[in-house]
């Protein structure tokens, strides 16, 4: 369904330099599947989502392939992309305030998302919008329909953005940290809604999050990103039970839940590498507890027993992955 193949994104920054925000990512989201994408802040998760949506900062360079049902999205014209966006692929962006127009009623913005892609009357769109707002847990949606965004709490705005993204039953949904501003009961409701959608319409979801609890709850597979690259992916069960990459291990260990009230929380020491000059070799080497001399060259991507992949020299005995992605 959605197939991301060796995608690289370079974003221009001051002084004629480039940030390699995504450095060769291969990832697939199947029909009805929820794939969790986790990784440290700034590792390129949102940029990868932007690459799929055709929404990258101006001047960015994109290479590799983004296939939706076998069709390469990179060949689309701006107008064709606009048709695909919000209809076949939808995005719940990380910053809800930025994706809502501050001068329009929230309900009207959801209705507009519907009418952009479907030829239905204003009335019908309004009714559907109200239902969508109810589904994402906005209390009394008909009465709050014409409120502008700033009258909504942070979590309510986030839910409006989710409602707009779900408006047209997209076949792929990119949900960029969709529940960070929600309390856990409403978060559970939203996650339930997402899972319901995958079952009902076969939507594939790429769920970007930093909450491993959320991944464990709803995702089928997980992909762990570090400094622009996916260092490990596999089924949630396999990766949680036996994280192979040292970064995945460190990430699982730094969950606050595991260390209640016992002084300082553990942090992964060191800094994320500067993506204007990504290090040669394994990008995690500078912070890795198990770094050794081979790590100065890029590790091979190998296939794990459960059918996942990992890029780390500690596992080079495993077979390399075949070229084609499923």
């Amino acid at each position, binding site marked *: 369904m959605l197939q991301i193949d060796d995608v690289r994104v370079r974003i221009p920054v001051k002084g004629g330099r480039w940030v390699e925000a995504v450095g060769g990512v291969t990832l697939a989201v199947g029909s009805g599947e929820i794939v969790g994408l986790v*990784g*440290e*802040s*700034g590792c390129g998760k949102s940029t990868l989502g932007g690459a799929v949506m055709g929404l990258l900062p101006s001047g960015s360079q994109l290479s590799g392939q983004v296939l939706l049902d076998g069709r390469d999205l990179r060949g689309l014209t701006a107008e064709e992309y606009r048709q695909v966006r919000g209809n076949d692929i939808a995005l719940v962006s990380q*910053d809800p*305030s930025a994706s809502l127009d501050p001068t329009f*009623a929230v309900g009207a913005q959801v209705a507009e998302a519907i009418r952009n892609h479907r030829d239905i009357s204003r009335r019908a769109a309004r009714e559907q919008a109200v239902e969508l707002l*109810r589904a994402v*847990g*906005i*209390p*009394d949606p008909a*009465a*709050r*329909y*014409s*409120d502008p965004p700033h*009258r909504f*709490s*942070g*979590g*309510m705005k986030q*839910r409006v953005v989710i409602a707009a993204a779900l408006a047209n039953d997209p076949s792929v949904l990119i949900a960029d940290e969709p529940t*960070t*501003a*929600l*309390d*856990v*009961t*409403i*978060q*559970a*409701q939203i*996650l*339930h809604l997402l*899972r319901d959608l995958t079952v009902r319409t076969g939507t594939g979801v790429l769920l970007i999050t*930093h909450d*491993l*609890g*959320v*991944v*464990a*709850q*709803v995702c089928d597979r997980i992909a762990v990103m570090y400094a622009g690259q996916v260092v490990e992916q596999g089924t949630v069960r396999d990766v*949680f*039970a036996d994280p192979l990459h040292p970064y995945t291990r460190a*990430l*699982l260990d*730094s*969950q*606050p*839940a595991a*260390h*209640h*009230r016992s002084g*300082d*929380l*553990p*942090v992964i020491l060191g800094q*994320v590498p500067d993506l204007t000059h990504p290090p040669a070799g394994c990008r995690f080497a500078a912070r890795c507890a198990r770094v050794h001399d081979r790590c100065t060259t890029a590790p091979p991507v190998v296939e794990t027993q459960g059918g996942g992949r990992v890029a780390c020299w500690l596992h080079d005995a495993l077979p390399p992955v075949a070229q084609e992605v499923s």
Partner: protein
Amino acid sequence: MTALLDVRGLVVTFPAPGSGLRRKRVHALSGVDLTLGRGHTHGLVGESGSGKSTLARCVLGLQRPDDGSVLFDGTEIVGLRGSALRDIRRRIQPVFQDPLGSLDPRWTVGRSVRESLDAYGVGSPPDRERRVRELLDLVGLSPDHADRHPVQLSGGQRQRVGIAAALASGPDLIVADEPVSALDVSVQAQILNLMARLQRDLGVAFLFVSHDLSVVEHVSDEVSVMYLGKIVETADRADLFANPVHPYTRALLDAVPIPEPDARLVHVPLSGDIPSPIDPPSGCRFHPRCPLRVDSCSRERPALTPVGTLNSADHTPHLVACPVVLPARP
């Protein structure tokens, strides 16, 4: 010992959309009480849209309540204006959720950190520069970060700048509205460690709003749980997490996702429509969704009542607004 912050009977309503004279109102806060001791951290959790940010803004003097009082160190904040308000604001500072949105993109980090020093005319310009460098150092940034713009910093660095700016005027209380929600786990841990250190060294008190219950459990001395404009339970941190009493608190704690694949989401923890703050349910506001409700729940408004025997002088009393669960505990 008087409390640093004492909120009593706070009521805030907003006009609901629509027009006309008999326009309905959104009941954001409906009689909220909260106490915070010096150098303590009070965690505030609760349903999204239950009024946590509104409460935080009232404490900061950014929102005028319809009714109720906010006593800060014995001074009534509600209704303060002009220089009196400015004087008190110096001692209560905010840290916001979105570290990028809370810094002016056109300003250098140094200027943002200096903002309150400039406002109050503290010291000479070179003094202020020196103070900025001290503050940056205090939050673990280097002096040359002062000349950068927010876009040139990572999320964690931006949040450190936000904290440095809040510390500049030497506040006694920092109101932090979801300060770590936008940060990944590792950066989040750094910021929480920083806040804990500042509290130890400077004795700052925090009103700490968060959705992440494990974070709240980590940082708080006391915790209050909000539901639809009311506080339904308040207790000492350990007490609240060990013995949650109110049905909503229990639902909330039950819904925390555990990072283990065997703990799949099977059911939505709370069923029923989320009630509207425009027409809040009668009686107990939680009753339409409460698994334990009895007939009287829709009629009688439960008041916060002490539970159990944990109630000693140096302990925060454990208060719960639910008569149904009360007799269950001796």
